[in-house]
């Protein structure tokens, strides 16, 4: 039950080539659509049935999102792929781009067809040199094969796809900041509404999806929405790539069925490094609140279960943390990341992230005060929900998680100036 969707070429030699992709049935769906002019509504229905949810982090149902595009509206429309994979701990899109670029191209072309967009942009983060080269090569192959361009295979359908490389700002992974950056401006989120579906790239209707979401589409349409849904569990269809990292034996990308128990996933990854006990897991990228081992070992890896436990699937970046890890340091490192990456546009995030980071580093420096903990929680609460985009929330949420489950470590460091984990170890 692994590598069935986005990684379906992974077992082949040079899985990124057009030949490899065609050998697993690639571009069949696209050719079929071009030939039969499959009604767009049918495709959207299949996606809705599949319960495919946005793989970038927010988990918004993809079929529903596609149905929001004003398809009948005249004028230029765009489909944009968000390959600005910036969430710390996430590295799944990179491998899709590196090892299965054609499936993304096919997914975007289908998206363009469904949403009557004749131009697509694949926005990749600035650090993705190798994936960018692979994508460029794949695009060339696809154009040479006549699968993209004007009047594709005499179908009367146009679709041009362009790769675009960002400059490495985390904020450009936010869809409206990505659009601004794509337009050549400073990457800063736009206030919503209007949403990109009405006012996107160059002011035109635009659909932005994550790489994994687009890449899942051809397979869903090939096998049917129900097949995809059945791979996972109800309301959490299909498979998901989890980027598992941290204190485990085999870090890497694992495309597994939704609803797999965490402990099975951990086993697939070879278990804990040095067989140390598990302390905690950050289940969906650095923005998701940390969950302690006791919670994690009992839950399944899907939107509903992790949500119920107080965290989120997010981008699927599972960061595994072993006993002996100082949570204050982890919190400070996380806070520092958001401090550096806040775009600076709106007040709570610009000021609040810096404040949190400074307080945490002061605690690490042994200058902490006990009221700092209440203040930290307060700052996080004050950022939460008061910003233009979700970066503020992303900075605030993990803070709540750390304070909820590991407040004693913070208190210990403030009182003694020493790491709680060291004292535990020494006592043992």
């Amino acid at each position, binding site marked *: 039950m692994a590598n069935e969707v986005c990684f379906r070429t992974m077992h082949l030699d040079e899985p990124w080539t057009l030949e490899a992709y065609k050998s697993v049935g690639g571009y069949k769906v696209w050719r079929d659509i071009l030939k039969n002019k499959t009604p767009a509504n049918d495709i959207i229905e299949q996606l809705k049935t599949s319960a495919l949810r946005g793989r970038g982090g927010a988990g918004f149902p993809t079929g529903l999102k596609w149905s929001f595009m004003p398809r009948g509206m005249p004028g230029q429309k765009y489909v944009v792929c968000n390959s600005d994979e910036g969430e710390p701990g996430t590295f799944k899109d990179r491998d899709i781009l590196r090892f299965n670029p054609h499936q993304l191209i096919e997914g975007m072309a289908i998206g363009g067809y469904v949403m009557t967009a004749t131009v697509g942009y694949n926005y990749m983060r600035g650090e993705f040199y190798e994936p960018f080269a692979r994508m460029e090569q794949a695009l060339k192959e696809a154009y040479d094969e006549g699968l993209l361009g004007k009047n594709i295979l005499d179908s009367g359908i146009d679709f041009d796809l362009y790769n675009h490389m960002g400059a490495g700002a985390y904020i450009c992974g936010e869809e409206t900041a990505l659009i601004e950056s794509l337009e050549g401006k400073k990457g800063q989120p736009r206030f919503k509404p209007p949403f990109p579906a009405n006012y996107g790239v160059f002011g035109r209707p635009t659909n932005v999806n994550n790489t994994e979401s687009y890449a899942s589409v051809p397979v869903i349409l090939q096998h049917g929405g129900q097949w995809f849904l059945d791979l996972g569990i109800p309301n959490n269809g299909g498979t998901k790539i989890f980027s598992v990292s941290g204190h485990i034996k085999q870090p890497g990308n694992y495309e597994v069925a939704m609803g797999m128990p965490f402990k099975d996933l951990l086993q697939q990854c070879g278990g804990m490094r040095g067989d140390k006990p598990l302390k905690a897991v950050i289940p969906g990228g650095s923005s998701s609140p940390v969950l302690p081992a006791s919670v994690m070992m009992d839950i399944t890896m899907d939107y509903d279960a992790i949500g119920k436990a107080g965290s989120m699937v997010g981008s699927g970046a599972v960061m595994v943390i072993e006993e002996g890890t100082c949570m204050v340091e982890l919190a400070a490192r996380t806070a520092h990341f958001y401090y550096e990456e806040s775009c*600076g*546009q709106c*007040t709570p995030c610009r000021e609040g992230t*810096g404040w949190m980071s400074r307080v945490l580093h002061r605690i690490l420096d042994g200058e902490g005060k006990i009221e700092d903990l209440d203040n930290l929680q307060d700052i996080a609460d004050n950022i939460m929900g008061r910003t233009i985009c979700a970066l503020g929330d992303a900075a605030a949420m993990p803070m709540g998680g750390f304070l909820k489950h590991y407040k004693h470590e913070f208190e210990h460091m403030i009182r003694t100036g020493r790491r709680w984990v060291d004292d535990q170890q020494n006592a043992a």
Partner: protein
Amino acid sequence: MGTVTIEIDGVSLEAETGSMIIEIADDAGMHIPRFCYHKKLSVAANCRMCLVDVSNSPKAVPACATPVADGMKVLTNSTKARIAQKSVMEFLLINHPLDCPICDQGGECELQDVALGFGNDVSRFTEGKRVVQDKNIGPLIETDMTRCIHCTRCVRFGTEVVGMREMGATGRGEHMEIGTYIEKSIESEVSGNIIDLCPVGALTAKPSRYKARAWEMQSTAGVSPHDCLGTNIEIHHRRGEVIRVVPRENEKINEVWISDRDRFSYQSVTDSERLTQPKIKKDGQWQTCDWETALTHVCDQLNNIKQSEGVENIGALISPSATLEEMYLTQKLMRGLGSHNIDHRLRQVDFSSQFEAPMFPGMEFDIDALEDMDATLLIDADLRREQPLLALRLRKSTRHGRVMSVHSGEVENNFKVSPNVSVPASDLLAQLQGIVAALIEQHKEVSAELTELFVDIKPTPDQQTIASELRINDNACLLVGQSALEHSKSSHIRWLAKTISDLSGCAFGELTAGANTAGGYIAGALPHRLSAAEESNICGWNTQQMLQKGLSAYLLMNTEPELDSSYRDAARVSLLKSKFVVMMTPFAKGEFLDYADVLLPIAGFTETSGTFINVCGEWQSFTAAVKAKGEARPAWKVLRVLGNLLELDGFDYVSSQEINAAVKERFESTTDARVGHFQRPDSLESGGEKPRPLSMYDMDSLTRRSLCLQMSVQGQDNWRRDQIEHLVASQSLPETESPDSLINLSASSAESETASLQESSDA
């Protein structure tokens, strides 16, 4: 657009669909705190201060960016809203320096005001604060970037209103800085508005820095003396000293903006060397005297010359920015003496159609109508230089409409112009004739005579486009620029423009020099007409004749003809050659020291009451903000006394309002003369020339003497720099400016600036 009903804090309000909560609240006088929102700028929603509690929304939402919906219930003061607002306030303050005691914005600071309502007494923030390096963005605006709260109003003003992206944000997060990226002076001619827009003390006025506190100043409403719009200003003064000038909102004229010269030209009356006592030249030496001596001397000399040379050898030149009252009394004085040599049209060269001119040249439509135009033709208009705020208005029209231009010389617009036809001055007529010919081609009912006149002219595609755009669009207009009237064939240009307007059906407008050309016409400061356009049976000499042919005696009413007129060389010769020159001026320095015989100190523009009539015929009266310096007196009072000393009738006015009323009465009793009827010429003319247009800060005696304007980028570019730099106000260099940084700003002029400073301290 329909309306919906919403409820704000329990008050039921009608709201237009699509409007934002904050607009409705503002209209109803309910205050929602804000920093980034400004009614003239796009919505940024970045400060988050206006978060309010809206029914059915789990989160507090920004009032500036949340559209109204029917039945929406908004609470601006609920616990949820209050907590949100207070939390944003806390965030804004943690990195703000709180240096209010030494901040120029203190007392009129939006952050300070809002902090009083939403801030905490004690900060929980104990970390180090952010410090940002200040930027030098020129002589007009002082920066203190540590105080910046990143509302981006200044950035949006540049991008949206001015069309020059001079300010921007670099860096991310807390490291974000507002600035010009590569350090440079701001070049926009309306840059000073970012001082008003800045809600904190990050951008403050450099010339008035540290001069006064907001609460110490009194405010007097005024009207800007620089261009024909009649921009509304507010003069702030303390203990009889003008400290600064800020905009006074007038949606119909200047919205909330003023140009930099409106804002900073006050420096000429506060800081330049002022004439504070009457002076008489005796044996080539200037001697101070009292008013009585000076005025008696003037009367005696004028009477002598009248006797010996004849009254037709006396003439008066008046600044087109003089007040209506000053213009009226000057012409009354001259006509009382018996001379009709009176003119305020100093830059005009072609006077051949003066009898056909309308009551006053101007615009047939309102200034605010300009932003709704679908097609506008600019005829030799350089709006940014001549009427900067009109350029902002017209720029708005380019969002939906089209602006076209036919001009001579270099014109830089801050909006898209197409077609943008630039030709030598000698080809201007041919261009306009082409447009007329195109209109005749497109038009069905044109008189045979007119058709005959244009039969040989073949319009170009651009001319065809201009013609059809003006004809097709209902909302179309043409504007004849200020400098078109300086053209040697301006009469023909006006006739062509009028013909284009008549044939295309577009509205007609002429832009005029100075603040009060319309007032000059109405007051009768003309050689061929009495006040209110009453025909005069004697036609006196116009500016050109007075300066080129020469007179024995001149009365110069607040004008320096060698700089203000188009006849620099002739003016110097004639004035030096003449027997007697009376100079009424607020200033102590100028070439007039060479040619004048009597100097009468008059009040500066902030020190006199009066009236300006703008290009749309709007009468705007104002009062004096401060007392005139020294012995200087408002010019209308000087003229009144002079009239009485000359034993002329009708000089018994006790206030400027009385003079105004007298002119108004005459104006309102005439109606037939209002519309000009330009006669069709027998043949088409060609060629012609135009004097080089004056630089933006060389157009009147005030801008020439304002140090900060002369130090600005446009000031440095004055092409007559060498002729005017000795006039520059130089008593107070901005304190933060060291000579070194002056050199940085402009290496070429820094030396002369300091040299003129030296001169004045020696004097």
